[in-house]
């Protein structure tokens, strides 16, 4: 089995119109063991969160760092790691991510010599600092043995195989433009995690996709979003990773322009018996 990981972020059409940078971030890390860590974060991008690009970048870095450390610590003991993540995923791990994101944000804020708001008692208001960097976080760890998914806030983590499209993890969907955020006190309580053993002799190819909410919000409804996931899967099988990854940015840009106008990030892991590398990558 060969696994290929690729993705792209694009500045949303609405953000282009007002000159606001893309607030999404993505990160992928491949470990020596073959395990991969994927992460996507969506900075809120509102006037109240002027540094949310830094917030999203910090979020993906924190996820990859913490999960990478666990993979290293439990190297060769996947069963133990699976048990640990199943038991502690939405408590210890989520708390650790929450605390580390906040620690790094405070450090960055101080290093950049940005002013620290004070509350009515003239104490430093850390919550107000975190708010300036508000971001969501999606994460997925794929090993030979299991999957570990993490979600805090909006966005989607889906798996596509020949049997169809399904959500790897079901998180709260809040109507409108609200989302759970790392910037909130005890944000870890809103995190959702899932640990699942991989099927033995799973039929390939399989595609995993992490995407910011700009992607699903750009489609008419859930069915159209799922159809899109299926189309990406089919294109990967037919044309190969190079052809799809080469065109991904342009496609996402078009999706934002004709859809909800938000920044869009899509990060893929594609597993197949053979990855088709040749084909129509020209013109990307």
């Amino acid at each position, binding site marked *: 089995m060969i696994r290929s990981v690729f993705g792209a972020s694009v500045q949303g059409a609405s953000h282009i119109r007002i000159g606001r940078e893309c607030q999404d971030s993505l990160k992928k890390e491949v470990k020596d063991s073959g395990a991969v860590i994927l992460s996507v974060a969506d900075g809120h991008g509102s006037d109240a969160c002027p540094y949310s690009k830094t917030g999203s970048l910090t979020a993906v870095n924190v996820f990859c760092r913490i999960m990478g450390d666990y993979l290293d610590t439990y190297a060769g003991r996947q069963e133990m790691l699976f048990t640990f993540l199943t038991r502690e995923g939405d408590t210890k791990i989520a708390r650790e991510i929450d605390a580390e994101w906040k620690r790094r944000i405070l450090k960055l804020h101080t290093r950049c010599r940005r002013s620290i708001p004070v509350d009515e008692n003239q104490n430093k208001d850390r919550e107000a600092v975190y708010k300036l960097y508000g971001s969501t976080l999606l994460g997925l760890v794929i090993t030979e043995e299991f999957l570990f998914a993490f979600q805090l806030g909006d966005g989607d983590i889906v798996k596509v195989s020949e049997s169809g499209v399904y959500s790897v993890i079901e998180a709260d969907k809040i*109507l409108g433009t609200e989302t*759970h*955020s790392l910037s909130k006190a005890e944000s870890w309580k809103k995190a959702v995690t899932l640990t699942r053993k991989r099927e033995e002799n799973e039929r390939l190819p399989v595609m995993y996709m992490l995407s910011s909410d700009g992607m699903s919000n750009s489609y008419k409804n859930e069915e159209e979003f799922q159809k899109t996931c299926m189309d990406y899967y089919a294109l990967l099988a037919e044309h190969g990773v190079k052809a799809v990854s080469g065109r991904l940015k342009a496609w996402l840009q078009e999706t934002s322009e*004709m859809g909800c106008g938000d920044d869009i990030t899509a990060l893929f892991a594609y597993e197949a018996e053979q990855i088709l590398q040749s084909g129509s990558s020209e013109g990307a």
Partner: protein
Amino acid sequence: MGEMKRPGGELASRPLHFFWIVDCSGSMYGEKIGTVNHAIQSTIPEMVSAAENNPNAQLMIRTLKFSTGASWVTSNPVNVEDFAWDDLEAVGVTDLGKAFELLAAQLTIPPMSDRALPPVLVLLSDGQPTDDYKKALSELKKLPWGKKAVKIAISIGQDADDAVLEEFTGNKELVLQANNAAALTKMIKWASTAASLVSAPASIAADTAGQDGDAPVIVDMGGRIPDLDDIQDGDVW
């Protein structure tokens, strides 16, 4: 190997539903309803222009009137570009509860989409409800979109029941005072801009104190509300 087109299903901008909810009871007769008719009519070009500047939100407008009973003036949501204002007449009592019932029926999912932007409800009233509005308002506010809607009220004249309007908005600041024609025109114009404020794709961190994001949407509009002192005096209603 054929040409590779963008994968995917049908793309669509996010719908944004804007509701004018107008008191057409007898006490609105004359200058009040005339001002409402003229002011809302005059907001249309600006709303069209604002919508053109944000093609990623599809602004749909509807009008609901209430007096003795309540009814939709526009039976279906109308794209802002096609929206035309039909002058309303004032006669009858103030069945606000009936208006809330009709509104609630349209804020359920479906016909509302769960991928819509928060709807904007603008209620204009000069009097006290004559029916039992509380039950209907409670039902309205239990709906997911009833909770998440941006609710603005314009209190017309000194006889308006601000406590009722505040119950509707859930926020005293969003009960706008309009005691003369100039103020009413200005407040209607200001309320019409709420659509552009909620149509940006920026996210808002949900209040973690609320259960699963049940708390109402807080739109920071307070600082932009027109100052009544800046509005020229006219005959006070």
